[in-house]
């Protein structure tokens, strides 16, 4: 194929353009529409006879019938190599800060910049030597990227076994200089560079096996870790109506979760929300590494006013980058906000293609696309026996906050944990607004199972009594039942709720969670004797006030210890009475 295959535009309907061609086209190949001096990136998404329909990743204003189209034969791909960490890309992996340098405040269409600067120089350390055998995804050497060893792999698209013909010695190389040469059994030879391309819609599967997620991923959110845990290599979803705090929850997770690399895919959401991450992460220090959080973060940002087709591809771009870092034996967390916008992008395109609509006009392939996306998460054993993981947490924005809608339902089928946010909780300012009565998780927590079960039990019981009181009134329930209700409410307000704007309370490490939950467990299991209901209410109000102060005091500080003592005195008082009574 020396000559470029070309075609011309015959039909324009918003971002779907029909192209007539002569020779052949490849499904999902990238093509450029040439309008004036601009080249607009597009992707072939349907072929019918001698015309192909393409989604255009840009605004189509001014396109004309007859405009020339050039096909590239390449599927939509991303560049994988050192220099990705700390970057901010759009859905097509264009670095946004560089675009801003070139174009100013606004995004200019048709301007594309390479994700990785070709001239950037990295010190390469070879691992293999000539004569060694390699498979796709095996390590040839490494460079240092920020705090990680960034391995350089044999290309992921190799078949069978290849032999290293030559490999460069330790030294500085840029992305254009080959670092190794490989040959296969047919004596075909290829060069390997520090960076390689990979099509985003195809999973990278260069590992020996996928294993069952078995270890909790500590998010430092008490409600999640203690009651509805997430596992490394697992998947979870956060559906919730607008204003229930999905994004705050995701931001907190991105900051505090115990993982190596965090990839944030801001997909069709507000730009303002990404900005906070963009502006604060370079300054926030990760306590585990003492480096800025940005050093372990990649942001893929295709916000709601950016072209819709690129929104569809942005989640694939994000998950491909996640898989790449997993390949280095790292634990990666991908936060996608929001998968509903991604699904809507598919719906928009499907509508313009005039496909037969499924439920709520979503395309019939919605479920399989969602399943395929979440299935790219996983804990894997790599060829050298090290372990890497991709955990996916997807926010879902159900229309009308109704979880029965297609995107939520399709997502629930494939995830391992469900953190459902509720409007009632957020209206009552009970944050995080994850509703413990509807949420579930299939993963194991670091909290003892008995304690966890007690927690769930008391919450359900407390709610049942609350519902009863709504019907028959407070006077209608017995004092012991009322106390059970108060216990559940207490657990909720001092443990499940967390103040995201309190420096200490916003994240609770594993050790402290275990300690504090044990303390509460004692209280939940205690029998209290009260004169009357208002006495019980007063007791728990008092305890709650102290506990809130406890939550915002530094772990094991003087303040922490003195509040703990104060609470024990109050508790002892009641317990003494109890003993006397007994």
């Amino acid at each position: 194929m020396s000559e470029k295959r070309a075609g011309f535009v015959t039909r324009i309907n918003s971002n779907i353009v029909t192209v007539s061609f002569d020779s052949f086209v490849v499904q999902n190949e990238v093509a450029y529409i040439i309008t004036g001096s601009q080249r607009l990136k597009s992707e072939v998404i349907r072929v019918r006879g001698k015309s192909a329909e393409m989604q255009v990743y840009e605004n189509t204003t001014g396109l004309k019938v007859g405009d020339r189209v050039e096909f590239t034969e390449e599927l939509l791909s991303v560049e994988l190599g050192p220099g990705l960490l700390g970057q901010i890309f759009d859905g097509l992996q264009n670095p946004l800060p560089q675009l801003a340098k070139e174009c100013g405040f606004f995004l200019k269409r048709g301007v594309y910049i390479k994700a990785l600067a070709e001239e950037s120089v990295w010190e390469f350390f070879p691992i293999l030597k000539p004569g060694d055998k390699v498979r796709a995804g095996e390590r040839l050497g490494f460079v240092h990227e920020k705090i990680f060893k960034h391995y350089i792999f044999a290309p992921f698209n190799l078949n069978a076994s290849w032999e290293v013909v030559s490999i460069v010695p330790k030294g500085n190389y840029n992305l254009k200089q080959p670092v190794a040469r490989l040959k296969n059994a047919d004596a075909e030879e290829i060069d390997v560079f520090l960076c390689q391309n990979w099509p985003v819609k195809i999973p990278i599967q260069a590992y020996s096996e996928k294993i069952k997620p078995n270890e909790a991923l500590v998010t430092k959110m008490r409600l999640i870790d203690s009651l509805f845990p997430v596992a490394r290599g697992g998947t979870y979803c956060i559906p919730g109506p607008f204003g229930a705090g999905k994004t705050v929850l995701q931001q907190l997770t991105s900051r505090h979760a115990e993982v190596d690399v965090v990839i944030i895919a801001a997909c069709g959401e507000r730009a303002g929300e990404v900005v906070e991450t963009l502006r604060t992460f370079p300054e926030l220090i990760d306590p585990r590494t003492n480096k800025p959080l940005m050093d372990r973060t990649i942001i893929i940002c295709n916000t709601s006013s950016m072209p819709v087709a690129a929104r569809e591809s942005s989640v694939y771009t994000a998950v491909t980058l996640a898989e790449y870092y997993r390949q280095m034996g790292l634990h990666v967390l991908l936060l996608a906000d929001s998968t509903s916008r991604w699904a809507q992008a598919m719906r928009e395109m499907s509508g313009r293609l005039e496909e037969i609509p499924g439920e709520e006009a979503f395309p019939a392939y919605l479920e399989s696309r969602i399943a395929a996306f979440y299935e790219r998460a996983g804990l894997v054993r790599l060829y050298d026996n090290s372990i890497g993981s991709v955990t996916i947490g997807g926010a879902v924005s159900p229309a009308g906050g109704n979880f029965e809608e297609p995107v939520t339902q399709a997502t629930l089928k494939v995830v391992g944990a469900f953190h459902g946010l509720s409007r009632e909780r957020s209206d009552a300012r009970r944050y995080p607004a994850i509703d413990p009565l509807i949420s579930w998780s299939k993963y194991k927590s670091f909290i003892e199972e008995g304690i966890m079960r007690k927690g769930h039990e008391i919450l359900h019981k407390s709610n049942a009594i609350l519902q009863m009181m709504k019907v028959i009134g407070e006077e209608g329930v017995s004092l012991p039942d009322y106390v059970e209700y108060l216990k559940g409410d207490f657990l909720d307000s001092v443990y499940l709720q967390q103040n995201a704007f309190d420096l200490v309370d916003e994240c609770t490490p594993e050790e402290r969670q275990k300690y504090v939950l044990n303390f509460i467990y004692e209280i939940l299991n205690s029998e209290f004797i009260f004169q009357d209901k208002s006495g019980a209410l007063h007791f728990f109000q008092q305890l709650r006030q102290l506990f809130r102060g406890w939550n915002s005091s530094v772990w094991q500080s003087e303040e922490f210890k003195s509040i703990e003592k104060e609470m024990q005195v109050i508790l002892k008082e009641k317990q003494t009475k109890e003993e006397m009574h007994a």
Partner: protein
Amino acid sequence: MHKSYTSIVQIAGDVITVEVDGIGYLEIAEISSRRGKSLAQVIRIDDKKVSLQVFAGSKGVSTGDKVRFLGHAMRVASGENLLGRIFNGSGIALDRGPELSQQMIEIAGPPVNPAKRIIPTKMIRTGIPMIDVFNSLVESQKLPIFSIAGEPYNELMARIAIQAEVDIIILGGMGLKYDDYLFFRDTLEEQGALSRSILFIHTASDPVVECLLVPDISLAVAEKFALEGKKVLVLLTDMTNFCDALKEVSITMEQVPSNRGYPGDLYSQLAARYEKAVDFEGAGSITILAATTMPGDDVTHPVPDNTGYITEGQFYLKNGVIEPFGSLSRLKQQVNGKTRDDHRTIMDTMIQLFASYRQSVEKQAMGFQMSEWDKKLLRYGSLFETKIMSLKVNIPLEKALDLGWQILAECFSPEETGIKKSMIAKYWPKNPQ
């Protein structure tokens, strides 16, 4: 210079189809019919068939009428000369003033690069405690007022516009009742704000398609001012009418509807407009306040629902007051930590207690016995409703916070409020009345 065509082959709704070559997508054309001239915009091209939506509507358009393509997308005049002027949805003067053609700019320009955005930090003070204390409005925020027909949302918007310290006010009226248009014009005039205002008015009796242009025109003009360093407040009322116009056109174009007849790209359409709210580093800003009426007071209706996912919160106007539940300013945390150190405490505590008050009211309504605690809550609730919640209240933030402590102290003992001891020591009134 530009060729005219007379080959209209189809007229359906307000969309006409012309057979012609070499026309750009979204290009503007001028149609001359017996009813006068109207602009139209290309919305679909299928080989030689070019479909256009006619802003003045297709009534009276004949298949023999002339269509002249202008070779560019929709443009509008911008700049200082527009101040104090009133235009319709296509940018034609409604106030007998001269037509303007200076600094023509294309509407619906490209989105702002997220990497160039900055974290908003400037609070807009309104003197309304339900906003200042509980849901602070922030410069560059996009915030709708969710409401139902008959609620005073236009009055609220006008009041905020006049009290807010902004350089320029742009009003985009969509499907506005003529009375409401006059209300805005007169209020701005009485308060001496008309000279720094620009009005783009589409009234309920104007052609539907013209409504679609109002937000784009208003925001394009606003953007130009903001780039020149001005703080602009854009009022859009009522965005539900805009969405209904979208629905009408998309159904005419035989698009597959997604939810209650609205097009599948409703979210993207709304986002493209609301996301124009921005704070330009080193220049001005755009803040958007929009009215969204909810058919049947149903917040899950596609219009308020999609809006809520796009905007940075919402004010929920019900029974003439801003409801604390359902109202939210997502950007409040950016500013309310820097006002006074008790701002957040008062905000959280008062709302939590108010939520408990509502439960007690419910219990009372069902005839249950009121406990001592319930009685305290009832007293608190009524004080809150009259002294804080009423839209008649007009006091600065600091006064409102002091008032908050006073009300708390009047009704509760410190530990009943659950407020941290350090805060109580600093602010709890020593001798409450």
